[in-house]
């Protein structure tokens, strides 16, 4: 069965041979998996360690911009991601860098028992000062160069794989990177006009990018913002309804007008049960990543299985980093029996696989997904 057909079946709520699978990785974990694959007999391909544009030597982009996808394909994943937008600014090289939006990033090293890595954290915000907002000029979403990678992916991979156009960090994430996290949370409840002015910036950019990706022929558009926390919405549903719902509704309407068959996925971490009915109302098809410590996947299937398709659900706060391989296998099977019953699921971890995940656990997940028939 073609990888893309497996995904199409699952999204049509039919039962494919096995559950479609999608996994992304931090650059360090990508290196570790690649080395392990080579040790297991995958031919070593130095060119594959470089990204296609050559300029980001060896750095894997977890959101899928500029990758060779050698790893994803070697693992038998079914979806290929290609991203346009602010999310591509994560994991750039250097101890410190300013991205094209003016956000200052700093490299933050960490250690695990499997080696050292780095996260990139936003430490400087170009719109921290109110006075900077009116005169701010965002990057141009219409540059042809932004879409070269998507064109390549569609040309080379869409025949076999399900292609996802990625415009995550659609509004809130980029907006707080521009303004400052705490400040924008306060702005949302104290200054409506200023908040609107800031939110429009990433919204217009990512909507333009989304429309272009839809016209180019991606199978699914992946949007989203982290609006949930570990134990509830980050901000009030009324706040979300006022600032984010109409914008997302407009974006979704526009891309579906371009391609009515396009699926739209929404990424949000955390517990967002309070706005699930409205996410369905505005046309979100696929809920991602289904963080299981916050929203029970089995409950979601029971309550929303007719309204949403699901993507994700493998726990990365406990099972993958700290569980046993058997825990991982059991969790895959539990998901297949519940949120994946009768199709409707793309299975995978709820975030990029982190370096603190033991390889045994990673392979337990991949092998169990690949070997277990769906029903």
């Amino acid at each position, binding site marked *: 069965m073609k990888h893309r057909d497996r995904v199409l079946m699952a999204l049509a709520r039919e039962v494919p041979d096995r559950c479609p699978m999608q996994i992304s990785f931090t650059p360090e974990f990508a290196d570790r998996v690649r080395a392990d694959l080579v040790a297991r007999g995958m031919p070593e391909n130095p060119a594959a360690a470089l990204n296609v544009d050559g300029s980001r030597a060896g750095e894997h982009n977890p959101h899928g911009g500029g990758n060779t996808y050698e790893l994803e394909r070697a693992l038998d994943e079914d979806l290929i991601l290609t991203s346009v937008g602010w999310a591509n600014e994560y994991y750039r090289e250097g101890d410190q860098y300013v991205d094209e939006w003016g956000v200052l990033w700093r490299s*933050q090293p*960490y250690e695990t028992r499997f080696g050292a890595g780095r996260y990139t954290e936003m430490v400087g915000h170009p719109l921290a000062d109110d006075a900077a907002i009116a005169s701010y000029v965002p990057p141009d979403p219409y540059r042809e160069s932004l879409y070269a990678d998507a064109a390549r992916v569609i040309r080379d991979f869409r025949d076999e794989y399900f292609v996802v156009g990625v415009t995550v960090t659609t509004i809130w994430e980029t907006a707080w990177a521009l303004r400052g996290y705490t400040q924008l*949370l*306060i702005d949302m409840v104290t200054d409506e006009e200023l908040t609107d002015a800031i939110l429009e910036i990433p919204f217009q950019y990512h909507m333009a990018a989304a429309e272009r990706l839809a016209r180019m022929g991606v199978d699914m558009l992946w949007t989203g913002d982290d609006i949930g926390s570990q*134990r509830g919405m980050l*901000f*009030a549903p009324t706040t979300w309804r006022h600032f984010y719902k109409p914008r997302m509704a407009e974006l979704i309407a526009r891309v579906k007008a371009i391609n009515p068959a396009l699926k739209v996925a929404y990424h949000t971490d955390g517990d967002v049960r309070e706005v699930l009915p409205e996410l369905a109302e505005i046309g979100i098809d696929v809920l991602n990543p289904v963080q299981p410590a916050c929203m029970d996947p089995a409950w979601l299937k029971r309550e929303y299985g007719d309204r949403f398709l699901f993507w994700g659900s493998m726990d990365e706060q*406990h099972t993958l980093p700290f569980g046993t391989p058997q825990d991982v296998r059991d969790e895959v099977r539990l998901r297949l029996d519940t949120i994946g019953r009768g199709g409707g699921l793309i299975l995978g971890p709820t975030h990029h696989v982190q370096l603190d995940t033991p390889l045994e656990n990673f392979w337990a997940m991949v092998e169990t997904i690949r070997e277990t028939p769906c029903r």
Partner: protein
Amino acid sequence: MADLAALTAAIEAGDRATAVRITREAVDEGMDPRAVLGAMTAAMEVIGAKFQCNEIYVPEMLISARAMKEATAVLEPVLVKAGIRPEHTAVLGTIKGDLHDIGKNLVGMMWKGANIEVIDLGTNVTAEKFVEAAKEHGATIVGISALLTTTMVGMKDVVAAIRAANLGDVKVIVGGAPVTQDFADLIGADGYASDAASAVEAAKTAVGMA
């Protein structure tokens, strides 16, 4: 006479201008600062309760905490002059390797709101720094926050360092998205809180505060 009920309401509403104005009135009138402080902590107690049952969310907590902070600044000189100090001091920080601070900041705001003195060490804090600060400030509470599975494992070292430093009866409270009660028990922490509001309860219980 300054309207303390209105002060409580102002802080609950996140109305910093009104909170500051009423506090100033109270100070000018020579009102007992303990009564004024009481009106403020009462507001934050309501805020904490509302947050715990999802009646309000992080933005509302932030503006209430801000209102209390600015009102407290007006009251501070009077409290200092009268020798009124919080009974307990807490040292607070995000663990080494971790730059995330919103959760930690909210805990700090809620602890201050409960009249606990808070020494906020910021983010990326080493075990040594936690110990040093606890010693320097005579802290009875150490609060550690982590957002990442990769950094939370370091909390174990902080607990060990604090016990090894023999600082007296210091209680360690831990929290953060990936942290659980089980993990807190495993590393020998004295308390665990799943959010900033329950962190007040956790601290009070740990040190036997009313």
